[in-house]
């Protein structure tokens, strides 16, 4: 952080010790397939997928086991061959420890792929919409952690007129190196995936932003992209949170995304490098997203490094094969800044899991929160220019509207404020709590509106029923009167006939 940056206000973010090596430099490993895979049906933003297999059914690796339902959703495929042993609930890799619907597969150990049908000889001859359809069918979601369905993003991008594709190879979180490994080992695949995404989104240029603490990845990507002038590899300075969509956009284009807009409003679509590799696999090999590279890092692992893990493998199974040196003080899925604190190890790896960190007590550096001393370190660190200390004070007093006025909705939950806080105040947790509370209030309001509609519908029904009853009663009365008249007439006619016969 130079003095010029300070003068011009370009002082966002923090510079944590990245601790990526030696794990980043070790070759990629493949782990033995566990006995069971626990595949959640909600591994993406949007509606959970709908199961299309039955218990006891045999499935092959890559076979569709749950289809996307609704506009925003993603398909889910079997991560290995075996038998479906349960369709039920699985503990989510989430701080709450709540269950989500999921499918359990008992693996047969053969790991046999489903024969890929219909691989296009030249995908660039296909319609862009067809590419997006195939990406959706392969269940590809954003691999950077947000897990937004990729095909939907490309389609929406095409609709809003995208000119540039930014490929996010920032990987600014400390400890993680899965994207680094993807770029080093599969640079050609990533470049091919980028070209396919350019074709699908209608963009003309792609900028690959890679932090300058990954020189090997930059070299590999530059070499792979050398013959494609539309793809430019741009090293960016290492600074957290460079991997945030809006910040990488600013670093590469020099423009800033407005608070109420997205990068797509400025003609730019951002995708992760892992997503590009998954797109390549889906289109060129017809293979859906069923496994991913996961970084095992942190002082408690016996052998840190990057491993290829099938979706649905339990963290406890990972621990069984990769082994821990000591009991970790904290088990985290994702990075140390934004990752999820795991309540237990019996949770599966999902499409968005970039790493499993087992931190020792020294690394976790736990401590009690102290009162705020108003040092404003958090204000300087906040990459979005908010006032974390003021927002947290309001949230502490349940003044959520006040926190929103200070820009709570622009908070990207990057954790810079909590990282620099000398009083160890859990600032991000305050913001997470407030966002959840506001969402809950919005839901209550919607519910009250729905209740009003239901009450009105009931009142209308009661009125209609009373009217119908009255009408029916009137009808019956009229019928009875008619019947009586007919009877009287018949009796009169009978009497007349009688009198005639007697006469």
């Amino acid at each position, binding site marked *: 952080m130079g003095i010029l940056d300070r003068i011009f206000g370009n002082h966002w973010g923090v510079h944590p010790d990245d601790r990526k090596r030696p794990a980043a430099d070790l070759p990629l490993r493949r782990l033995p397939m566990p006995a069971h895979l626990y595949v959640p049906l909600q591994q993406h933003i949007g509606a959970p997928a709908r199961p299309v297999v039955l218990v006891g059914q045999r499935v092959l690796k890559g076979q569709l086991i749950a289809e996307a339902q609704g506009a925003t959703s993603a398909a889910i495929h079997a991560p290995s061959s075996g038998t479906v042993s349960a369709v039920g609930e699985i503990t989510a890799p989430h701080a709450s420890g709540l269950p989500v619907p999921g499918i359990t597969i008992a693996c047969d150990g053969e790991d046999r792929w489903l024969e890929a049908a219909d691989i296009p000889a030249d995908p660039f001859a296909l319609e862009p919409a067809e590419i997006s359809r195939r990406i959706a069918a392969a269940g590809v979601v954003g691999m950077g952690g947000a897990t937004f369905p990729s095909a939907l993003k490309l389609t929406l991008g095409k609709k809003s007129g995208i000119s540039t594709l930014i490929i996010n190879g920032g990987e600014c979180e400390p400890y993680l190196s899965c994207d680094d490994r993807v770029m080093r080992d599969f640079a050609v695949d990533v470049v091919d995936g980028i070209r396919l995404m350019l074709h699908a989104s209608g963009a003309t240029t792609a900028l690959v932003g890679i932090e300058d603490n990954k020189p090997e990845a930059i070299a590999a990507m530059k070499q792979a992209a050398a013959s494609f002038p539309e793809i430019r590899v741009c090293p960016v300075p290492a600074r957290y949170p460079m991997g945030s969509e809006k910040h990488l956009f600013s670093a590469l284009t020099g423009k800033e995304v407005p608070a109420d807009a997205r990068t797509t409003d400025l003609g730019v679509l951002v995708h992760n490098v892992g997503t590009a590799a998954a797109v390549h696999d889906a289109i060129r090999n017809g293979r859906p997203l069923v496994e991913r590279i996961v970084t095992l890092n942190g002082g408690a692992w016996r052998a840190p490094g990057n491993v290829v893990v099938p979706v649905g493998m339990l963290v406890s199974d990972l621990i069984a094969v990769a082994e821990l040196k000591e009991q970790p003080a904290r088990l985290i899925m994702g990075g140390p800044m934004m990752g999820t604190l795991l309540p237990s190890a019996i949770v599966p790896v999902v499409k968005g899991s970039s790493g499993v960190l087992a931190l020792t007590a020294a690394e976790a550096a736990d401590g009690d929160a102290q009162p705020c001393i108003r040092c404003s370190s958090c204000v300087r660190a906040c990459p979005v220019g908010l006032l974390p200390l003021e927002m947290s004070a309001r949230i502490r007093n349940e003044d959520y509207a006040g926190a929103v006025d200070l820009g709570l909705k622009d908070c990207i939950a990057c954790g810079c404020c909590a990282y620099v806080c000398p009083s160890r105040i859990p600032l991000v947790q305050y913001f997470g709590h407030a966002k959840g509370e506001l969402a809950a209030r919005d839901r209550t309001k919607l519910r009250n509106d729905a209740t009003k509609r239901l009450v009105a519908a*009931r009142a209308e029904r009661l009125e209609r029923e009373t009217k119908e009853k009255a009408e029916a009663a009137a009808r019956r009365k009229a019928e009875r009167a008619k019947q009586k008249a007919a009877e009287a007439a018949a009796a009169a006619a009978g009497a007349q006939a009688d009198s005639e016969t007697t006469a």
Partner: protein
Amino acid sequence: MIAAILSLTLLGIALGLGLGVAAKKFAVEGNPVVDELTALMPGSNCGQCGYPGCAGAAAAIVDGTAAPTCCPPGGKALATAIAEKLGLSLDLSGMVDEGPKIASVSEEICIGCCRCIKVCPTDAIVGAAKQIHNVIREACTGCAACIDRCPTEAMVMKPVPVTLQHWVWPKPALA
């Protein structure tokens, strides 16, 4: 006979007119704030607050005899909205929000008597005579009006399960 009919009719007309004129002339203006509050409330007139319907509760809140936190289905969101409208300072800590609850039918006990269906303010219970009833979860407001009506205690209030989508980070403990 005719004299009696005529005199009663005339009396009726005269008194009716008198009442009508009085209603117009001595009309008491309804408090518009009460109407506004009533519009904010769920409107199911469930009676959990102890007042006769939502309008009654709104009037009591405006009078100051009821707290803005008295509406359980409205929850904290409604309490804050009311307090904001009336410019009250609100202490939400006293409001024990034990989470939303909805009614549910124990199917093995239900005899299909239809009594609960008649009192449900949102038509959230489906069923017919001698058929097991059931509650539509999306439509139930948790007003508990049906609970006392059930002759077999088959109706119970159950907490709505927390899902991943509805989970809220707990507020950090104070330093």
